[in-house]
């Protein structure tokens, strides 16, 4: 029994509008530097699509995450000895072309161009070489381009979706997409940590944030290939690996990470989860179909007295246990069973969770007219009963969030539909008929829970979305220096400039 706390973020995809505000907030705060221009610690992808870097889910190519070998869990990338042998050249490492060559525009040309008959233009130049370049791709080049031959059709998660459904998605009238914001998953079983030859990457025990110690990083760059989500990046200027730090300086001062705080759709929630570190190897080793259940089971119930006393014994702070009980992520994930991890088949036990998106209204084009693809009398009920008619294929969502197992995805979608129907009846008709109540029971919920889900989904305040425990950094610093002498200091910044070595 070794209980630890994990700061976890939850993305309610049904609310994401794909505005990229999160990406820009993160970029402005952390990666607006030389060598980091191409990095997007937070990015938003259009799905189905190929993502950033292109086809990052294709582990045949990038060899990220873990795989089962002879009943044990091994890095897909390398064994230890082979890892050392590949230091000189790592074939699984993405190249800059898999991301994109960062660019800006020569804006001065607009002011300095000699007078003439034509408008001056600001030509694009590379942020690496400074020379003119032809922009061929970007970090969200396929934004809203679902249904396209080059992007949507090459989505690795589409591979085992039946051809007739794929053909359907290719019809212009049936084109559908959802957005997928991604940050580092701060996994329980991180492959980047395991792959680092120098031992520079580590997981913080107190809050589970995975960080790179850049003083120990030697640019062997195995972490970049080993991360199945491709969320560790190589700074080409400093020669060090970098990744999302879950805005720990903000968390430590009681603020939500910049991406979450700036979210326009308010899709992000944050809270503490408790887990048993000793149970991680077991949970990561189960067959694909049980991965979601095993990962949920690894998250412990903070209301269970046994868990609370074990957590205390393992050194989890009392107030962190209290905050684990108030965690919105715990509610969505465990109490309501709505949230799912991204690609659990990578077996890193990702700790950022997603609520799968509901589909847009189901419609067909017939004789040049749009009509609903449902019986006219009971539209809602029919979609509820017939999820396969949903425009986003359930199989596809299952490939994204449940290692191909449709059951947890169907449960989650049906529950959300049931809540939606219940609340519609309630606000439009003021009374709930038996059919709607039966619907709730069928979806595994009840009126009280449905109202709670509705409230936390649609009406949460800032403090309900971000339930951030106190970090007590003042006490950490107390161990080696007097806090009063540090009063007024920000505590941020470098002691030495992070300059490239010779």
């Amino acid at each position, binding site marked *: 029994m070794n209980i630890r706390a994990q700061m976890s973020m939850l993305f309610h995809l049904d609310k994401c509008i794909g505005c990229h505000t999160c990406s820009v907030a993160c970029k402005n705060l952390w990666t607006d530097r030389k060598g980091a221009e191409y990095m997007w610690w937070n990015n938003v992808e259009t799905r189905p699509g190929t993502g950033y870097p292109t086809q990052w889910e294709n582990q045949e190519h990038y060899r990220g995450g873990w795989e089962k070998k002879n009943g044990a869990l091994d890095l897909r990338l390398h064994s*230890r*000895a082979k*890892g*050392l042998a590949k*230091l*000189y*050249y*790592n074939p699984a*490492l*993405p*190249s*800059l072309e898999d991301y994109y060559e960062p660019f800006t525009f020569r804006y001065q040309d607009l002011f300095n161009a000699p007078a003439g008959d034509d408008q001056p233009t600001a030509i694009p130049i590379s942020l*690496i*070489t*400074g*020379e003119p370049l032809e922009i061929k791709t970007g970090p969200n080049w396929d934004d809203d381009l679902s249904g396209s031959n080059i992007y949507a059709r090459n989505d690795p998660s589409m591979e085992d979706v039946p051809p007739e459904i794929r053909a359907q998605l290719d019809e212009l009238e049936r084109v559908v997409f959802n957005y997928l914001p991604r940050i580092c998953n701060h996994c329980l*079983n*991180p492959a980047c*940590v*395991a792959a*680092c*030859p*120098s*031992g520079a*990457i*580590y*997981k*913080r*025990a*107190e809050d589970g944030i995975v960080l790179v110690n*850049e*003083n*120990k*990083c*030697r*640019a*062997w*760059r195995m972490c970049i290939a080993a991360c199945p989500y491709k969320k560790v990046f*190589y700074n*080409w*200027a*400093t*020669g*060090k690996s970098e990744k999302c730090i879950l805005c720990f300086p903000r968390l430590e001062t009681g603020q939500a990470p910049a991406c979450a705080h700036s979210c326009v759709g308010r899709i992000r929630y944050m809270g503490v989860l408790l887990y048993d*570190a000793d149970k991680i190897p077991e949970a990561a080793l189960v067959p694909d179909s049980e991965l979601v259940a095993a990962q949920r089971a690894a998250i412990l119930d903070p209301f269970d007295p046994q868990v609370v006393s074990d957590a*205390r014994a393992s*050194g989890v*702070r*009392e107030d962190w246990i209290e905050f684990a009980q108030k965690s919105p992520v715990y509610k969505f994930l465990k109490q309501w069973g709505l949230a799912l991890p991204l690609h659990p088949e990578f077996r890193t036990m990702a700790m950022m969770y997603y609520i799968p998106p509901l589909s847009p209204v189901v419609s067909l084009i017939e004789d040049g007219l749009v009509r609903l693809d449902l019986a006219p009398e009971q539209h809602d009920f029919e979609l509820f009963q017939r999820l396969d008619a949903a425009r986003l294929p359930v199989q596809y969502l299952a490939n994204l969030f449940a290692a191909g197992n449709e059951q947890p995805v169907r449960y989650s979608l049906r529950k959300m539909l049931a809540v939606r129907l219940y609340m519609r009846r309630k606000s439009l008709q003021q009374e709930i008929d038996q059919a709607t109540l039966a619907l709730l029971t069928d979806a595994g919920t009840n009126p009280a829970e449905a109202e709670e889900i509705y409230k936390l989904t649609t009406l949460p305040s800032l403090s309900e979305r971000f339930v951030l425990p106190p970090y*007590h950094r003042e*006490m*950490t610093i107390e*161990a080696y220096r007097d806090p009063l002498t540090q009063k007024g200091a920000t505590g941020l910044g470098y002691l*030495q400039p*992070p*300059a*490239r*070595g*010779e």
Partner: protein
Amino acid sequence: MNFNTLLFMIFPYVSIAIFIIVTIYRSIFRPFTVSSLSSQLLERRWLYWGSISFHWGVALILTGHLLALLVPQSLVIWNAAPLRLYLLELTALALGIWCLAGLVVLTWRRLSNKRIRVVTTPMDLVIMVLLLASVITGVTIAIVYRFGSYWFTSVFSPYLWSILTLQPQPAIIAPLPWVIQLHMLNFFVLLAVLPFSRLIHILTYPLGYLLRPWQIVVWYRRVTRLDPRV
């Protein structure tokens, strides 16, 4: 004092002193600057052809030099049969040429690729020249002054041991051809430059990876069990 004393008695000690002091200083006080500074992200095609052959070639050849220094007797015994001598010499020469080919590719890549030029520092050019000098003189010696694995043990092993045991005998080097002297001198220059350059990554070769557990968990502050409400 003649050049022999200056270059092969005084300079080796200066070089070793610089190597030790600066390496320790940089490792402790400037750890951020220690990195292999990989450029695979920016250019990978030529790196494949250059880096693998250069690194493996140089690593194996250096191991050979080290063995000749540490266990000269075994080398003499191995070379007693001419066939084994030829085999060893041919292998070493092949490795040397392989390594040189890799280094030439890397040099060409560094000078011709725009992206790589952006991340090239003056020190990179210095070590490039020194490494080229080292490998070219080495291959030349292997071809012209046969058989190195035979005479190394009677000339260089005693000389290097005389340096390491603080009883320097630079006179051993004096009668050797200039190419061989240059090869030796170049080594001490490289040793002195190593802690100032990216070559320092050689010393951080991560052998510990073979032994450490997969996961690393760090507490920023262990909570004492005295007061759980803290």
